[in-house]
């Protein structure tokens, strides 16, 4: 069952790797010889364990709830026990709510909005802060964030979705603040809109969406790992001194 167990890449952490895009990202990384610490929020979901069985030497399952300070710190400690340095942090974990469509005329669920913010906006910031010491010693120093077009204020056309859109817009701002502070120290950043995926984000798998997670993960990894954009063959085409949000087709989204 062992497909390839040579550790030829760097070390990565992927959050929300139980299924969907996170799982596809983890799989893409181990397939490239990376060692992946796969954040797992759903211990009962089998897919990640199946992947672990295929790559026992490369994939480490990391119990992780990005909305909890203590869980994130414990995860950072667990990673630190196994490796001295980290090259890549992919903040993928995210949640959405069933009540997104409720307009302002309908009583809103503010606790749910808090939860979305805790996971989608503060989670990635919390992860970045906790894993900085490990990333500091890494080669790549790369921080990746799966955001969403829903966080683009300039392009926003929705009339509700308050909790989700607000959490993603706030995430973009938070990433920008980290960028301003950490870019001078050599860190590089990727902010990604994965497209509308057939994933379980709302609980059940969305069959109407336009992309398989693996398709989006492929272009995500090109973007996350490469210094060249996947859609042109010029090396070093990415301007590391400018933070932008790009989608799976390489298009830049306004803030």
């Amino acid at each position, binding site marked *: 069952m062992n497909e390839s167990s040579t550790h030829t890449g760097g070390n990565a952490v992927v959050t929300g790797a139980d299924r969907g895009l996170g799982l596809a990202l983890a799989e893409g990384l181990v397939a490239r010889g990376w060692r992946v610490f796969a954040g797992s929020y759903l211990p009962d979901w089998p897919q990640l364990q199946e992947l672990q069985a295929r790559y026992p030497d490369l994939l480490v399952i990391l119990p992780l709830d990005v909305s909890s300070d203590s869980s994130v710190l414990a995860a950072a400690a667990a990673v630190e026990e196994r490796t001295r340095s980290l090259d890549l942090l992919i903040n993928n974990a995210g949640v959405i709510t069933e009540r997104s469509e409720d307009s*302002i005329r309908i009583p809103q669920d503010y606790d749910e909005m808090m939860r979305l913010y805790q996971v989608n906006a503060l989670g990635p910031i919390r992860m970045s802060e906790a894993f900085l010491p490990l990333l500091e010693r890494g080669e790549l120093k790369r921080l990746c964030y799966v955001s969403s077009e829903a966080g683009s*204020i300039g392009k926003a056309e929705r009339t509700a979705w308050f909790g989700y859109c607000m959490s993603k817009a706030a995430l973009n701002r938070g990433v920008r603040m980290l960028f301003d502070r950490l870019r*001078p120290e050599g860190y590089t950043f990727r902010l990604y809109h994965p497209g509308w995926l057939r994933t379980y984000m709302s609980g059940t798998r969305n069959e109407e969406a336009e992309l398989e997670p693996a398709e989006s993960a492929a272009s995500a990894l090109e973007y996350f790992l490469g210094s060249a954009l996947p859609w042109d063959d010029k090396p070093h085409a990415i301007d590391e001194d400018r933070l932008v949000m790009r989608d799976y087709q390489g298009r830049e989204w306004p803030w």
Partner: protein
Amino acid sequence: MDRVAWILNLREPFGAALGRELVSRGWNVIGGDPEASDPGASARTEDTTDAPDRGRAEDGGKRSLSDWLRQDQASNEAGAACDNRPAAYGEIEGSGGETDGPKIGENSQVPTGTGTSGLNDFEGSVAFGPETNERRTDEDSAAADIFAGEAGQGRAGNERAADTAAAEAGAPLGAGAFAEEAGGPGSDGPRSDGASGGPASAAAPLPGHGRLRAVPLDASRPGALEQAARLTAELAGRIDLLVLNAGEPGPARGEALPAAAAESAPRDHAPGRLGGTQSAALEGAPASGSAGANPAEPWSSPFDGADTTEGRLRDYATYALTPLQAAERLLPLMEAAGGLKRICFVSSHEGSVSAGDASAPIGRAMARTALHMQAKLLFNDLRREGYTFRLYDPGLSPLRSAAPIGREAGGSAAAAGDAMASLPSLTAESARFAAGFFANPHADEGRLVLTGSRGEEWPF
């Protein structure tokens, strides 16, 4: 003019200044008072909805209302600015009051600008020049002083003086409750600063007197917004202009503010912050990067733990969720026919992803961005029903605005021209611009742009 503005937080210096500015332009203003959330007061106001003659408790709410009306009359007698003002609002149809406005730009049918940019569009903008912007004359101040006396007498001469005291303490609806507010930081222009030397003028009422009302509103208390909405409905019946100035009032005035100093040199300070986090994390327990868990980072102390998860969540609740809650609860009051239907968000360019600098606490900046998104979503939805929107950056951070003297952060394009201006005067200036920006029609209502106090536009 019988337009009604509703301000989420009247204690916050900008909100207070805006309240007086609107009052001085003939608006009726109702605002939330976060420090008056006495449960007794709310009980009283609830009672008033039931039946009259329910005894003393009900008296409190009723009396403050009639106090208000009396003051309105008193102010008419005192010869204050607006002679034809109705005794209470809600009595005059929307079209009737529009020509009453004594100032340029208050007739909503006459746009005041050519429509190219915020710089030219609004009364209060630099294009109008200082003469136009000067709205407090000596006459006005004399009238206000006279009224101060009369209002005091009106209350003292009341047959039920004891009840009045109770009403004042419990339901701070009269001008007297604003005594502290009047002397508050930034709630007054430079001119009245000069006048505030004497003990009598410390209790000077707000200009416009009975046109300004506070309702108890501690937004962190469950049910407070519903209660404020109910009370507002009793007082005014409708809201034309909803001002969502989220944010906590700064520390007590006069207090030295390390944060103000830190923020005035953002570029020097910012890189050190995460650096500090890192080194602390590296030197600290080998088990963890302790950034999220250690509230005692030296650099975060000015913000009182704002960079902990708890502080970040609190910022989100304060700056993003409270305005949304207020919009949800108060929207029904804005539907009335003839209403202006305008929602104004008071935010900061801290929340600009592309242009905000990195000196603000990350949680507050993120919450501001969330507020901008919220404004955009509401704009997308309610614009279809005739609502219009404003998104405003007063150019004063909540911490900085409480500092007694200071200047704008170095990189800010919203910095006041006069580097020596005091913050109270900056706040008053910013509120003056905001009053025009909020109340006047805009050349392009089809866009939502974060606009600063000089009319400059900030990108999202």
